[in-house]
C-alpha cells in the first residue's frame, strides 16, 4: 500500500475511500434529524469532503502519479480498485466546490431565517449527499459494475431532486428523466455483461489490455455509449433535460446542470480513451462530434427562443454539452494537438460546471425576488439585484468564450486543435456556438442593464446567497488564467494502468 506522498496528509488510498463513504456516513444521522440540524450537519460534511478532495488533488500532484486504493487489499482482477488520475482529481475537486457552494446557497441564513415552508427539506440534504457519493464513485471507480452501481445511485438521487416541491409539472419531468435514464442504464448494463463475457473481467484497465476488435466489443461499446449519451442528454436524446433542469428548485438545478450531467460524459471519456482500442475510437469520434455539433446549433437556437430564464439556461446546458463531444475526434487523433484538445475539453467541462451553477443560482434568486422568471420582465434588474445579475453575466461570459473567462481558454484550445487537425467544420461550429451563446446571454443581460419602465417590486433575498453565486462565477472566470498549453496535471496517470499500486 502506498503511503501519503505529502507529510501531514492521510495516505492517498484512505482519502479515495473517504471521498466515497464520507457522504454516506453523513447521510445516516440525517434520517433522525430535523431540517435545521440536517442542513448544519450537511455543511460540516461538505466542508470535510472538500478537504478530502483537495487532499487527493494535492497527493496526485505531489506524487506525479495516480492515487490508488484496493478494497480489502485485493488487487484487480480479484478485488476492486479505486484510482484517481489527474482528470479524476480535477473532477473530484470541481464537484466538491460546486456542491459546497450549493449547500451554502440552499442553507437558511443565520440572520434572516426563511419561513419554515421555504426551508429545504431534510430530503434535499440527504439527496445532495447521495449525489455526491455517487459522483465521487464514478470518478474513482475503474470497475464496470461498480460504475453501474454508482450510476444507478446517481440517477435515483437526482430524480427526486427534480420533483422536490411535488408540483405536477415537476413530477412529470422527473418521470421522464427517470425512464430515459433507465433506458441508459439498461444499455450500459448490456455492454457491461458483454465485456465480462468477452474478457472475463470488469476492470476497465485489464479489459482494455485484452480488448481486440470483435463484434461483441463493438456492440458493447455502442450500447454503453448510447446509454451514456441518453444520461448526458446529448441531442437528440435531450427530451428530459429542459423540463427537469428548469423545473427543479434552483439549488437542485445548479447541481444537476453543473455536475450530475458530467458523470456520464466522464465515463464516455474513460470508455473511449481508456477502454476502446484506438482504431475504434477514431471511427466513432466523428459521430460523437456530429451529434455534439447538432446539439450546439439546435439547442442554442432553441435557447434563443425561450421566454423563461430557467428554460433558457437549461437549453444552454443541452447546447454546452455538445462542446464536450466535439472533443472526441480531436482527442482521439494521434497527434501532438490532441493533448491540447483534451485539456480544452476538460477545462470546458470544469468552467461550464462553475458558470452554469452560478447562472442557475442567480436565476433562482432573480425568480425569488421578482416572483417570476419571464425574461421580458427583467428589464432594469441590474440596479435592483446587481450581484445576481453580475453572477449571471460573468457565467455567461464564460459560455460565450470571451476572455478572461475559463470558457475562452477552453474554446481557444479546442479551436487550435480543430484547425491543426484539419477539422474545419468543428472550428466553425465552435465559433457559431459562441455567437449563439452571445445572443442568448446578452438577451438577458442587456435589458437588465437598462432602466426599468416602472420600478420593480422586489422581495428581499439574502445578500450572501447572491455572493455564493457570484463566487462560483468568479471561479469560472478565474479558470481563464490557466496557461494555453496542454496541462501536465491532466496527463498524470495516463495512459491508465495499475502500475502505481504495485507494492
Amino acid at each position, binding site marked *: 500500500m502506498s503511503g501519503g506522498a505529502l507529510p501531514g496528509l492521510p495516505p492517498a488510498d484512505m482519502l479515495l475511500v473517504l471521498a466515497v463513504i464520507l457522504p454516506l456516513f453523513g447521510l445516516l444521522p440525517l434520517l433522525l434529524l430535523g431540517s435545521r440540524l440536517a442542513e448544519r450537519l450537511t455543511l460540516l460534511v461538505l466542508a470535510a469532503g472538500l478537504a478530502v478532495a483537495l487532499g487527493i488533488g494535492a497527493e496526485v500532484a505531489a506524487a506525479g502519479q495516480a492515487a490508488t486504493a484496493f478494497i480489502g487489499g485485493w488487487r484487480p482482477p480479484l478485488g476492486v480498485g479505486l484510482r484517481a488520475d489527474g482528470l479524476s482529481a480535477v473532477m473530484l475537486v470541481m464537484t466538491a466546490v460546486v456542491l459546497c457552494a450549493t449547500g451554502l446557497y440552499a442553507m437558511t441564513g443565520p440572520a434572516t431565517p426563511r419561513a419554515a415552508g421555504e426551508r429545504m427539506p431534510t430530503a434535499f440534504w440527504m439527496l445532495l449527499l447521495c449525489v455526491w457519493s455517487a459522483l465521487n464513485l464514478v470518478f474513482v471507480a475503474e470497475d464496470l459494475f461498480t460504475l453501474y452501481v454508482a450510476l444507478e445511485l446517481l440517477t435515483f438521487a437526482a430524480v427526486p431532486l427534480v420533483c422536490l416541491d411535488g408540483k405536477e409539472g415537476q413530477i412529470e419531468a422527473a418521470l421522464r428523466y427517470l425512464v430515459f435514464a433507465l433506458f441508459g442504464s439498461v444499455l450500459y448494463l448490456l455492454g457491461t455483461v458483454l465485456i465480462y463475457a468477452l474478457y472475463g473481467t470488469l476492470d476497465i484497465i485489464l479489459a482494455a489490455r485484452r480488448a481486440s476488435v470483435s463484434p461483441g466489443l463493438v456492440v458493447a461499446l455502442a450500447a454503453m455509449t448510447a446509454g451514456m449519451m441518453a444520461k448526458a442528454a446529448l441531442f437528440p436524446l*435531450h427530451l428530459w433535460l429542459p423540463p427537469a433542469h428548469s423545473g427543479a428548485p434552483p439549488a437542485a438545478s445548479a447541481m444537476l446542470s453543473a455536475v450530475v450531467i458530467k458523470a456520464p460524459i466522464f465515463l464516455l471519456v474513460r470508455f473511449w480513451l481508456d477502454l476502446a482500442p484506438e482504431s475504434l475510437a477514431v471511427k466513432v469520434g466523428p459521430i460523437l462530434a456530429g451529434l455534439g455539433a447538432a446539439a450546439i446549433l439546435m439547442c442554442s437556437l432553441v435557447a434563443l427562443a425561450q421566454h423563461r430564464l430557467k428554460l433558457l439556461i437549461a437549453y444552454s446546458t443541452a447546447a454546452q454539452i455538445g462542446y464536450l463531444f466535439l472533443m472526441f475526434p480531436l482527442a482521439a487523433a494521434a497527434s501532438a494537438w490532441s493533448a491540447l484538445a483534451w485539456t480544452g475539453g476538460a477545462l470546458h467541462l470544469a468552467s461550464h460546471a462553475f458558470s452554469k451553477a452560478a447562472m442557475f443560482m442567480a436565476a433562482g434568486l432573480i425568480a425569488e425576488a421578482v416572483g417570476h422568471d419571464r425574461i421580458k420582465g427583467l428589464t432594469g434588474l441590474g440596479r435592483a439585484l446587481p450581484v445576481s445579475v453580475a453572477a449571471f453575466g460573468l457565467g455567461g461570459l464564460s459560455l460565450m468564450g470571451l*476572455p478572461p473567462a475559463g470558457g475562452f481558454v477552453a474554446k481557444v484550445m479546442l479551436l487550435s486543435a480543430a484547425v491543426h487537425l484539419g477539422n474545419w467544420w468543428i472550428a466553425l461550429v465552435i465559433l457559431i456556438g459562441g455567437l449563439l451563446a452571445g445572443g442568448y446571454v446578452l438577451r438577458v443581460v442587456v435589458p437588465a442593464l437598462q432602466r426599468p419602465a416602472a420600478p420593480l417590486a422586489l422581495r428581499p433575498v439574502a445578500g450572501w446567497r447572491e455572493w455564493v453565486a457570484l463566487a462560483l462565477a468568479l471561479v469560472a472566470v478565474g479558470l481563464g488564467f490557466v496557461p494555453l498549453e496542454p496541462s501536465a496535471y491532466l496527463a498524470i496517470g495516463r495512459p491508465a494502468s495499475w502500475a502505481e499500486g504495485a507494492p
Partner: protein
Amino acid sequence: MTAGTLGGSDLLLLSAILVPLVLGLAALKPWVRRWGPTLALVAPLPALAAVLLVPVGQSVLLVPAPFRLTLALDAPGALLLGGAALLWLLAGIYARAYLKDDPERGAFSVWWLLTMAGAFAVFLVADVASFYLAYALVSFAAYGLAAHDDTAEARRAGRVYLALTVLGEALLIAAFVMLASSVSGANPLIRDAVAGLAQSPWRGAILGLLLVGFTMKMGLFPLHVWMPLAHAVAPVPGSAVLSGIVVKAGVIGLIRFLPADLPLAQWGMALLTAGLFTAFYGVAIGLTQSHPKRALAYSTVSQMGVVAAVLGAGLAAGDAAAPSLAAFYALNHMLLKGAMFLAVGVAMASGPRHLRLVLIGAAVLGLSLAGLPFTGGALAKYAVKAPVGEGGAGILLALSAGGTTLLMARYVLLLAARGKGADPAAGEAEAPPALLVPWAVLSGVAVLLPFALFTPVTGLGLGGLFSLEGIIKGLWPVALGLAVAALLYQKPPKVSEIPAGDILALTQGLRPALRGLLSAAVRLDAGLRHWSSAALALVLVMVALAVAMGEPQWLQPLWP
C-alpha cells in the same frame, strides 16, 4: 525584456492600464462610484506620464511563459496612447460638468473607466492573448457609453453595436488561433506570430478574417452601420471618446497584425479600395444628416476610410513606414474629432453672441481635418501622401479632402442650428467654463500638436510643406470643397435625410427569416422531444455507432 524586477518605466506602463481598470472596478461599489466623475480625471494621468517619460521601444515581460504577458511602447502605440490619454483627460473634465445633473453619472463613469483601461491596454500590449482581452474590454465597455441615455434609439444602437461586436470577436479569435499556430509555445508575441504569416498555410483566411474583424471596428463600408447609430446617441463626451479613441482599437489592430514588410499586393489593394470608397461614402451619407453628431459620426466613417487606404497602400507595397504614418493621421483625427464632438455640447449651451465664436472654432477644426495648409491636419494629410503615392489613389485621396471640407461645412451649419440662437431668452448665454475650457484647450492642441510631432514621426522637414507647391497641393481640395459648399448653400438640393445606419435598413428583410429559423428550431426540438422520436433516436444512435465501428467483414453478410 526583463522578468523579475520591474523598473520605474515598466511600472509606469503597467499603471497606465491598471489605474483606470482598478478605479473602474472599484467604482462598482456605490460609495466609490459617487466619486466616479472625479476619479475619471485621475485615471488617464499615468498613461500621459508614460508617454512623456517612457522611451519608445521599451518593452516589459510582466508574466513569463507560458502566459507571456508583455507590454511594449512602440511608435504607433505611443502616438495613439498619448493622444488618447490627453483626449480622455479633457473629455473627463468636460463630462464632469456635462453630466452633473444626470443621476446615472456614476454608472457612466464605471463604463468610462473600463473603456479607458481597455483602450490604453490595446495600445500597449504586445502578446496575442492580452490583445484579444484588451480589445474585448474596450469593445464591450464602450457599449455602456453608447447606450447610456437609455432611449429607444440608444437601445437599438446598443443592440446593433453588440451584435457586430460579438461577431467581430468571433472572427478575430479565429484569425488569432490560426496566426498563433505558426509559432511554438503558448501565447506568442504579436510580432512573432505575424512573422510566421508568410509561411502560414492559411494566410488568405487569416488576412481575410483580420481585415473584416478590425475594419468593422473602424467602420469601413459595409460594416460601418453601427457607428453612426452608436456615436450619435451617446452623451457628448461619450461620443468624443467613442469616435476619437475607441475606433482606433481597429486601427492599432491593423497596424499590429498586418505584416509591415511583407508586400501583399492583392490584400493591400482590397483594403485601399475599400478605404477610398468608404472615404467618399461617409461624406455622401453624412451630408444628408440633420444632427451635427450624426454628421460627425459619418465623418469618422470617412476618415477611417482614409486610414484604411493608407494602411492598404502600405500593405500592398510592403512599406514598413506606413503604420507609423497611419498612426500619425489617426492621432490627428482623434484629437480633432474629439474636439468637434465637444463643440456640439458647447454650442448647445451658447447664446447667439458666443455661438459665433464657437462656430469659428469649429470651422477651424473642420478645416484642419480637411488639411488646410498651416493647420495640423495639413501635416497629417502630407504625411500619408508618401505611402499612397501620386497616382490615381493619391488624387482620390486629395479629392476626399474636398469631400471632408464639404461635410465639415455642413457640420458647422448644423452646429449653428443647434445653438440657442433661436431662443430669444438665451441672448447672452455662455457655455460654462467647465465645458468651454477643455474644449478650447483640446482644439488648440489638436491644431498645433502635429507640428511638434511631424518631424520625429516622419523624419521629414516642414520645408516641403510650406513651399508654394506644397501649399497649393493642400489648398485646392479645400477650396474645391468650400466652393461646392457655397453652391449647395445657395441652391440646396432636395435630398431627404438618410436614416443613420443607412444600409442597415436592408437587413430588415432578415428579421422574418431569423424569426422563421427560430420557430423552425423550436418546432423541430418539440418533435424530437416526443417519447417516440427520442426512443427511436436512441436506437438509431446505437446502431449508427455500431455500424461506424463495424465496417469490417462481419457486418458484410448483413449487407445485400
